[in-house]
């Protein structure tokens, strides 16, 4: 499978860029205005707020009670819930997009979660830290210990991230469950997209995280 051409960031107004995270701006750029979105693992609602500024009907699920209450206190439609157990309660095709941002690696059953995302939503946007990133490899190869980075500072014994994968692993999972990649991006350490069109192995080495716009493959 080849990487499709990297599309320009749609609709990101420059005056907004400073106030939102680069990866959020990228994700928001993948969502068509006026659509209905579920953000799974929405944290304190930063991405939902960004989507709201674009007239997108956003809802959220968040595991931590503090996160949920902060979201609700911002006027966002967020419920307390768990990606592993609560997605089953949503009906098919309930959303245009379901977003799973930096959460896949913390789920107990990533494959089931991914399947649910594309059952509930016509499209899914998934971002995750790439364990094939060169700094990770270097720490394991040279340091001989489990990698820790600026974005993933937890030690192996207290991390919530139990299912790390590389960009290559993720692409293989998508193939295995017949999920089509409409768009793929690799981001550098600062959340900026690697703009050039490159082969997978380069992204897998130099992408700190991967962001994928997914849709159902044929027969799903």
């Amino acid at each position, binding site marked *: 499978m080849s990487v499709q051409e990297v599309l320009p960031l749609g609709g990101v107004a420059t005056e907004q860029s400073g106030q939102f995270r680069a990866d959020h701006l990228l994700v928001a750029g993948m969502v068509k205005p006026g659509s209905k979105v579920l953000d799974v693992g929405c944290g304190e609602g930063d991405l939902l707020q960004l989507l709201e500024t674009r007239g997108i009907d956003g809802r959220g699920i968040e595991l931590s*009670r503090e996160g949920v*209450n902060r979201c*609700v*206190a911002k*006027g*966002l*439609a967020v*419920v307390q819930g768990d990606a592993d157990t609560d997605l089953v*309660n949503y009906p098919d095709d*309930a959303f245009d997009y379901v977003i799973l941002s930096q959460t896949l690696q913390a789920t107990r059953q990533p494959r089931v979660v991914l399947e649910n995302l594309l059952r509930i939503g016509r499209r899914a946007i998934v971002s995750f830290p790439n364990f094939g990133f060169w700094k990770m490899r270097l720490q394991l190869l040279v340091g001989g210990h489990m990698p820790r980075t600026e974005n993933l500072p937890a030690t192996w014994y207290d991390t919530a991230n139990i299912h790390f994968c590389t960009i290559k692993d993720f692409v293989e999972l998508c193939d295995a469950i017949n999920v089509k990649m409409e768009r793929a991006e690799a981001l550098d350490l600062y959340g900026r997209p690697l703009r050039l069109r490159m082969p997978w192995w380069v992204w897998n080495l130099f992408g700190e995280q991967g962001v994928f716009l997914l849709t159902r493959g044929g027969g799903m």
Partner: protein
Amino acid sequence: MVGVTSIPSPAISADDRSHEVDHPSSQVAHFSTDQPLPLDCGVDLTPFQIAYQTYGELNADCSNAILICHALTLDQHVANLHPLTGKAGWWEIMVGPGRPLDPDKYFIICSNVIGGCMGSTGPASINPATGKVWGLDFPVVTIPDMVRAQAMLLDRLGIDTLLCVIGGSMGGMQVLQWTAAYPERVFSALPVACATRHSAQNIAFHELGRQAVMADPDWRAGRYFEQGTLPHRGLAVARMAGHITYLSDAALHRKFGRRMQDRELPTFSFDADFQVESYLRYQGSSFVERFDANSYLYLTRAMDYFDIAGDHGGVLAKAFAGIQTRFCVVSFTSDWLFPTSESRALVHALNASSARVSFAEIETDRGHDAFLLDVPEFFDIARAFLQSAGKARGLTAKDG
């Protein structure tokens, strides 16, 4: 003989109470025989009246109206002195200038429920057919009946769509009934510490309370007004049992522990040695001064019968199919009367209906009563939810 003190008699006479029942110290809407209230039990209640309070002004396009639905033993006196007790309104912490429900922004309505005893028609009212107090001749009312009556009141006030319906406990049940029965009239809903059905345990506690009232010889098969008695002991015991369910083990322990009441050592009697006993007795006896025993029977019954899914073929999501109302569901961690699991079941049903729903569980050890207390996290959520609903409804900054 071992010493024992009983619960004191009420300081208010039966005459005082019946006056507030018929001529409440609030606004009253009278509905004559051409506008009966059709009840679930098959009876048309007519004529009837609804006592209500309002705070703030209705704006020009009638888009800033908020209905508060009160809980079992509360009433329409949300944010003014209570005419019987002289105490502050029961939700002044939530309703007032600068508070989440600000009368400078919103037109706030609260009506006494049908079956209540603070001015809306109930078992303590006079039955026009006999000229006597209704007593047990009053038809059994349900939560849907209460909401139907509120809808008639809103018609009378010229309000088509509510910006929000908000309430806790039995009030939350009414909120849910509003969204199930009149979804197009409810722009947003804030059900707090409630459930879509009354659980077996809750029915059991209510039955305990009712049996306590009916076991009091002064109850006189519900005809105590005519016989010049009041079943104050039975009602006080019912209130004491109820009050325990509104608190939590942790809250009781923090408030009272095993501390003694005005004494160092136990008296080896059945006097109120412990502070918690003294507190419960006070709760029981002060309740009797403001509440009608028969009304307590009717309103607890209304809650027992409540089951939204049961009214929709056993499938809760069907009750909310295609609903456009914005929901904010709130529960409290230590509430064991309406535990978070009940709110979660509601949220799942709303998700299945693709409703726009927020759900927050608030950490507190204060039990079910937390919705009436100073819980800033809850106020922040209520304020933000109302503001976002107001914005979505097109209220200007001045309106809210």
